[in-house]
């Protein structure tokens, strides 16, 4: 299982690009972090998710 924003998902073995393709995130508006390290968009296709990984997907929201 891979944790995505705190939620366990059965996506081990997929690349980040493959996983994101199954979601409705706006690719222009997100940044991702895998096990605490930022993953540049250029390597989404080459970064394969493994069992036990933890991924964060973030975007901007209103704030002060």
């Amino acid at each position: 299982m891979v944790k995505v924003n705190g939620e366990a998902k059965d996506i081990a073995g997929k690349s980040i690009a493959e996983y994101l393709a199954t979601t409705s995130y706006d690719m222009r508006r997100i940044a991702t972090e895998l096990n605490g390290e930022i993953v540049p968009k250029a390597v989404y296709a080459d970064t394969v998710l493994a069992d036990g990984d933890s991924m964060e997907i973030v975007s901007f929201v209103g704030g002060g």
Partner: protein
Amino acid sequence: MNNDKLIIGGHEFQSRFILGSGKYSMKLIEAAVKDAGAEIITLAVRRANTKEHENILDYIPEGITLLPNTSGARNAEEAVRIARLARELGCGNFVKIEIMRDSKYLLPDNVETVKATEILANEGFVVMPYMYPDLNTARDLVNAGAASVMPLASPIGSNKGLATKEFIQILIDEIDLPIIVDAGIGRPSQACEAMEMGAAAIMANTALATAGDLPMMASAFKQAIEAGRRAYLSGLGRVLTRGASASDPLTGFLRD
């Protein structure tokens, strides 16, 4: 006045009003930016939501500088992490450091803020740290590479005004960086007063978000900030410690 620019980390701004974007409808952002005359707007970073397709970036007009904050960070390490993610979102390298250990009063942790400032300034960020107005911390922030110092006027979201006035004045007098009063400013008159004192800019969010008519309040703040700036540049008139000073001629009275 046209040559009077706010310079932060080598970037020039005409406006001295930094606008927050929290706690109100994204649909009001464009009007708020326009009526505030703002050139900088703050944002927060949070887990992305796939269900909500509206993104705040779609509502911010072109040419506005984004100032992501590190809200949610409880220490320097978390602030650095959020700042790096914000930069990865691809909207520039400005960051407002905001580190809070205290969830009741939301007071910034000055020690952790200095640590995060040093790390992020070394990574090329334009670092704008939110802090409790303390001269020693402000000096540490200068040495750590901050591009401005953002002391709080009163607790975040309180609209209580310049509770820390005397200490902000010390920062204005002693620190050779723009002092931007952030948090607690609730009324245009308070923003004006801070500008008269020599603050470089005002950051406001809740004062607008909780106002009756947000864009109208944005324009009221804009005018107050400009008035305060002009007053500061002109030099305020002196205050008498005692007595009075006539404004009218002391000769030619219609008597005797």
